């Protein structure tokens, strides 16, 4: 069988993903996480009577906590495979990637397992963020003077 025919056959039998459905789910779940974030900011600034900026810091910590805790209980993997980018793009995805890498390598010990592999997936976010922020900051400093 030549290559093109084989490829056509494989394509025919691959499970088709419904892109519209995936996008809709990601939109709704991501939007709900955004609403939850805003809700937490409002609640915290009302309860502790602190400015919005500090409340948003506590909100981020809460979401990271939720992401880590639900990953430990095993719910979050199923939720991520259902909502995909709806939960990967928010800060919960960052927490999830760190937590799952930590749990996966736990058996290799604290230093060579957890410590060395914690940033296996999340390290790219920090590297790209720091490098881009450095150069964009430098650019802005040179053009606008800070």
């Amino acid at each position, binding site marked *: 069988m030549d290559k093109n025919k084989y490829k056509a056959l494989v394509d025919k039998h691959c499970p088709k993903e419904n892109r519209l459905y995936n996008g809709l789910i*990601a939109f709704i779940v991501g*939007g709900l996480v955004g609403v939850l974030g805003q809700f937490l900011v409002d609640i915290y600034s009302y309860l502790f009577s602190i400015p919005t900026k500090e409340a948003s810091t506590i*909100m*981020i910590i809460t979401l990271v906590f939720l992401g880590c805790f639900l990953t*430990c209980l095993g719910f979050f993997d199923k939720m991520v495979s259902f909502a995909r980018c709806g939960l990967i793009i928010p800060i919960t995805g*960052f927490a999830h990637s760190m937590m799952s890498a930590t*749990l996966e390598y736990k058996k290799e010990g604290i230093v060579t397992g*957890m410590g060395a592999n914690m940033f296996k997936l999340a390290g790219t976010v920090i590297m790209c963020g720091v490098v881009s922020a450095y150069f*964009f900051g430098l650019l802005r400093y040179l053009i606008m003077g*800070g």
Partner: protein
Amino acid sequence: MIYFNAFLFAGVVCLIGQIILDNTKLTPGHITSLFVVLGSLLDAFDIYDKFVLWCGGGALVPITSFGHLLIHGTMDTVSNFGVMGLFTGMFDLTSAGIVSAIVFSFVFGLIFKARD
């Protein structure tokens, strides 16, 4: 109204990510990195601040706000200490997210086991 804006902004960011994930061969790691770079680019020209003003928590939840906070901390220290601020102030505002993620991962990693 701010809740509707938050829903719309966070939803649209996630939708763009999902469209990229479905139609290209990029992994979620590529997409989150791309969004961080995009966030810092938007904030270098003061655009992301308007999103934060307009949709509050909805703009702070997606990973784009990580790049936004990196640039923000940097520019705050640059305006006080000059070009050395690029090195000293980068993590001023993002440290909450990073430190909490590391501490929770470590503590929960000690307590829980991997489930498979």
